[in-house]
């Protein structure tokens, strides 16, 4: 605390972007505005392509043809569907809460875009005498912003279900909120492991620390477990199959968005796919080195290399999500809660301890790992013995009541 740190003028939230190195001037602001618009346009176009890709791929996996009428290979199908959707009548259910009903789709869509703003999609570029990072914002709290936005994203689903004023949406909303709050814990713990190793909260810092080699990527450095936990928890946050209980079309009609029509419905649709892309991009950032990858030197187009790597990696995750949807059946509610609370949280907590041990030294890490394995082996046995003894002594129903 004794070292005097020189005071530097800072602008909160977008500070580490070198575009503000010389203070805020009109060009810098303009660059930021352009970046916002570009990112939004990029995300929208990606969503349109992603919807087409998902339908096409899942058709292939189910031995169907899929959309093939509008445009070459059905590429324009999404635009056709979107136009039709926007031209439909905008219905307001009689029992709906007017304000909240119209607010909810925005609360779902805006965080989905905001998550994407902190993703670095390339290295630094030079424009108009300014150097800027290829990400909309690089806040010093970086990855906490992700957690904050995923927390806010719950409101969209929850309020949509409540404000519709009928039972299926309400059930979907209750499921969605319980699910998302539960899995946020596991999500946060696996992010903590990443932050522990990289020593930085900013997304650019996290990407930078994984830079030189493939075996320096967090997925390998952290020993795959935090990544798997994050992948499962992120899928649950996204409400995508196999965690789509909030929609659950076979039991809840459409879940939280049952009553929605027209452009309000399209907002939910947009939000879901923006979220899928944003979270895939976040996974690439946290665990797969972001835009990092072997660079071949191509004159002039050098700056496109990292962007290409980023796109390829993100695409791999998008493929994975479609694959999940085609391959996995939906979880039952109790299975969902068991997985979240009984497995993911203890596993990520234990693994966090092991990662922390390895940060100190190899010996401490190995010892922690051994202890963790021992506990993991002994604890279930202890529970089983205790349960058996309890049932022997006549007390039954113990486990089901509360503990």
């Amino acid at each position, binding site marked *: 605390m004794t070292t005097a740190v020189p005071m530097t003028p800072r602008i909160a939230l977008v500070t580490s972007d070198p575009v503000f190195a010389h203070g805020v001037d009109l060009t810098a602001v303009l660059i930021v505005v352009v970046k916002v618009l570009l990112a939004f346009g990029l995300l929208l176009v990606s969503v349109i392509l992603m919807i087409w890709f998902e339908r096409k791929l899942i058709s292939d996996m189910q031995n169907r043809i899929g959309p093939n009428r509008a445009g070459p290979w059905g590429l324009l199908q999404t635009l056709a569907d979107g136009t039709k959707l926007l031209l439909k009548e905008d219905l307001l259910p009689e029992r709906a809460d007017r304000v909240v009903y119209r607010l909810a789709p925005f609360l779902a869509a805006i965080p989905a875009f905001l998550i994407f703003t902190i993703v670095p999609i390339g290295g630094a570029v030079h424009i108009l005498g300014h150097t800027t990072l290829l990400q909309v914002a690089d806040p010093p709290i970086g990855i*906490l912003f992700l957690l904050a936005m995923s*927390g806010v994203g719950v*409101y969209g689903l929850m309020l949509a279900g409540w404000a519709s004023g009928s039972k299926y949406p309400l059930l979907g909303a209750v499921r969605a909120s319980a699910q998302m709050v539960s899995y946020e814990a596991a999500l946060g713990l696996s992010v903590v492991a990443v932050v522990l190793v990289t020593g930085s909260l900013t997304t650019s810092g996290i990407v930078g620390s994984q830079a030189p080699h493939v075996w320096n990527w967090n997925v390998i450095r952290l020993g795959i477990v935090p990544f798997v936990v994050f992948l499962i928890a992120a899928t649950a946050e996204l409400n995508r199959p196999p965690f789509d209980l909030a929609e659950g079309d076979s039991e809840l009609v459409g879940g939280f968005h049952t009553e929605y029509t027209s452009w309000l419905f399209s907002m939910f649709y947009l939000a879901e796919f923006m979220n899928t892309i944003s979270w895939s991009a976040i996974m690439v950032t946290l665990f797969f080195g972001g835009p990092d990858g072997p660079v071949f030197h191509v004159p002039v187009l050098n700056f496109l290399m990292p962007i290409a790597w980023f796109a390829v990696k993100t695409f791999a995750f998008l493929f994975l999500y479609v694959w999940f949807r085609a391959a996995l059946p939906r979880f039952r509610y109790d299975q969902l809660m068991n997985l979240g609370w009984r497995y993911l949280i203890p596993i990520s907590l234990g693994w966090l301890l092991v990662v922390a041990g390895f940060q100190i030294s190899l010996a401490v890490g190995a010892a922690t790992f051994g202890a963790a394995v021992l506990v993991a082996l002994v604890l279930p046995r202890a529970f089983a013995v205790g349960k058996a003894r309890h049932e022997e002594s006549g007390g039954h129903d113990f486990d089901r009541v509360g*503990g």
Partner: protein
Amino acid sequence: MLAVTITIPDLVTFVLAAAIVLVAAIGVVVSRSPVHAALCLVATLFGIAVLFVEQNAEFLAAVQVIVYAGAIVVLFLFVIMLLGVDREEAIGKDPLRAQRPLGVLLGLLVLAEVLVLSRLSWPIGQPHVAGPVGGPSSNVADLARAVFTTYLLPFEITSALLLIATVGAVVLARRPPRSAGQPGAATGQPGRATGQPGGAIGQPGGATGRPALDGASQPDAADETGTVRSPEREGAPR
């Protein structure tokens, strides 16, 4: 360091955020529907988070949004939905009339206190009250150093207190296990064993007691959420 000039963007941000905080805070108090009040609370918390950012306390802002907006108010709403208390309250029929003048009096007192204190000892117009600001994450680093060195004991005691509170809530919330020696335990009270129909979610008014026309969606929803809730409850304490 003391002479901090207030720039126009700073001023605009502050005024906007302060307006959001004030309007939403009034909304919390005047809203008739509990859900609207909770939403106004979220808006208030967001405005405060913006004010934190304005003071260069980004970490505090993030935690504010994650913990309060992202978790606590979500739980409020969750409970409101589960219990079906989301009908508008008749504020006119306030059973505690004497509280109103007392409330006004207390409010004025607190306002006066804040005004006096702000004159006396609060550092005003000095953004970096949290400590020196240097690198990109110094905010977090400073806070972490303070929490894990200077204030380690209070921090640990607080977390232990929260843990005790959680365990206590779990113990209080669960129904007492039926012991074998208790008379009638073998047959089991029918209400216990099957779960009181409709009242499984602990709604004293009884979802079944309400006329069907009054809340056409609510009784079914309550029943369903009752069944939905039990596995969640089973897992929650772990």
